[in-house]
């Protein structure tokens, strides 16, 4: 018994130390470095100068607001499409197959998908060709707010559908029958029974979409044509272009705080 217990705690020790080391090296240390960088001024001394710049300059606050606002819209659009989609897939006979079709695009590189959209939305692309043949003329689709939101939502949809689908599958179908039996029509059943019971999935979906959407920069660049500038874009610019790592880190810390707030707001009770 004692031997077993020791053996067990040895396994635990190995596991926890490996895991702890990993956590320390790749999660905690980078975060600390980020925080440290954000607190260092251009002269190498500790200062809150970067944060002051961030919060005093209107530009960055607007950017922060833009990030949150676009992330919110992307999340809302994604949810609006994903919930009915997940609901319908869950009621289909071969639901795992349909789900696979939804998940499949996530196996393709994000950059590739984004480039594909440049082709689709371009002035010479299929959408404009169709519009042209219908006599609607050619339109500038790329580099607009809406093209940015649509492409971002397209990319995020699988991450929203999956948790919602899982929570819908977990609902015992007899509850739906019980609701109908007690006098609720389809819509009332959805509203009073299915929706509340699928909320955990909706919350994880929101987390999975809202948080990455805060810091999208590839899509803003390629599809939004830098007309939409979010904090993600700003971080990229500071690290890669202006080489102002301190300020890039500051924005990073602010984003992390925004993410933590989102997690807290959507967490399970």
């Amino acid at each position, binding site marked *: 018994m004692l031997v077993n217990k020791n053996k067990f705690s040895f396994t635990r020790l190995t596991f926890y130390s490996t895991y702890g080391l990993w956590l320390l090296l790749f999660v905690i240390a980078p975060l600390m470095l980020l925080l440290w960088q954000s607190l260092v001024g251009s002269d190498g001394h500790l200062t809150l100068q970067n944060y002051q710049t961030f919060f005093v300059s209107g530009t960055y606050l607007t950017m922060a607001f833009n990030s949150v606002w676009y992330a919110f819209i992307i999340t809302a659009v994604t949810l609006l499409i994903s919930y009915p989609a997940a609901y319908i897939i869950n009621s289909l006979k071969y639901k795992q197959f349909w789900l696979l079709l939804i998940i499949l695009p996530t196996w393709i590189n994000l950059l590739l998908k984004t480039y594909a959209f440049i082709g689709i939305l371009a002035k010479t692309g299929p959408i404009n060709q169709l519009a042209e043949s219908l006599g609607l003329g050619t339109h500038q689709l790329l580099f607009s707010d809406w093209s940015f939101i649509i492409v971002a939502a397209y990319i995020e949809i699988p991450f929203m559908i999956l948790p919602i689908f899982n929570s819908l599958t977990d609902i*015992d179908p*007899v*509850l739906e*029958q*019980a*609701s*109908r*039996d*007690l*006098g*609720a*029509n389809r819509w*009332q059943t959805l509203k*009073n*029974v299915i929706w*509340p*019971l699928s909320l955990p999935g909706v919350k994880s979906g929101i987390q999975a979409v809202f948080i990455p959407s805060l810091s999208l920069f590839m899509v803003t660049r390629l599809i939004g044509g830098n007309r939409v500038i979010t904090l993600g874009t700003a971080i990229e610019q500071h690290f890669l272009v202006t080489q102002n790592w301190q300020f890039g880190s500051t924005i990073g810390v602010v984003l992390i705080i925004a993410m933590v707030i989102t997690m807290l707001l959507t967490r399970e009770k």
Partner: protein
Amino acid sequence: MENKEPIIEFQQVDLSFGSTKVLNKIDLALDAGKFYTLLGPSGSGKSTILKLISGQLQADSGEILFEGQRINHLPAEKRRVNTVFQNYALFPNMNVFDNVAFGPKLKGLSKDEVRLKVETMLSLVKLADFSNREINELSGGQQQRVAIARALANDPEVLLLDEPLSALDYKLRKDMQQELRTIQKRLGITFVFVTHDQEEALAMSDWIFVMNDGVIQQNGTPEDIYDEPINHFVADFIGESNIVKGIMKSDYLVHFVGKDFINVDAGMRPEERVEVVIRPEDLDLTTIENGKLVVTIEDQSFRGDFYEITAQDDDGNQWQVQATNSATIGERVGLTFDPEDIHIMRFNESENDFDARLERYEE
């Protein structure tokens, strides 16, 4: 009963799942205010009938009537029936109050009316103080009661109960049987109860439908069905039975196990091959001289209020006997019974013919 029209009527109802025939030309009529039981083994189609009444399933063909109106395609939420589901199907996101209030709220009752309704229903099932409990804080028996209260809160004309007691332990099940019967009598509405437990069916029902293979084998009062089973399946399924082959020599005279016996059945063809049923509790042990049959005791077990004895006659037939006195294994004893304890079953007799024959020959 002044209102002669049945509250629920099935006419030639058929239903198949793929190539499996689940219900085969079901005819039934339920009168308002009675306690009905659909009794049968699993897969017999009894729950399917319930789902057709509640609107969870649609019939392939045939008519389903509610107070004379065809309801084949009426959606579940528009039917004046409610269901107590097998595993209760309580909404886990709502507490006891909100579960029971679900139906009344949808009906658009005022807050006070809803509250009153919920309180009335919860006290009817003796859960008056449980209003604020969460569902996962309740025991199985309590969840069962909430499910009943929730269904009754909709003021249904018919309450459908789908094996509601099968998950409860023996003692609780007995109590709930009593209580359901009391509630049904008190509210005066129609109950349709589905079970595979024949004891439960006999104890609770005004009227029983015995089902097997998607067909109603027999329907009648518990006494009718127990005393006059129509065929081998019913005799075997309801209670314990000794079933042996016999020949009906003439009216009131049957031959089995090599002897002729006077009995009370009639209306068969002369020399017709039949099955003979004698219930274990109708058999008594006696001396060999006094015995109508002579058997050898094979096994005996004590059951509290009686001894369950297995014996074999000289033709090799097994006989189950419920005796008040014990016997010795290996001993040869006589078995005795009265002419009215012999029940004759014809092969392939339809329920209508069976009823007609009984009516003609019953005194």
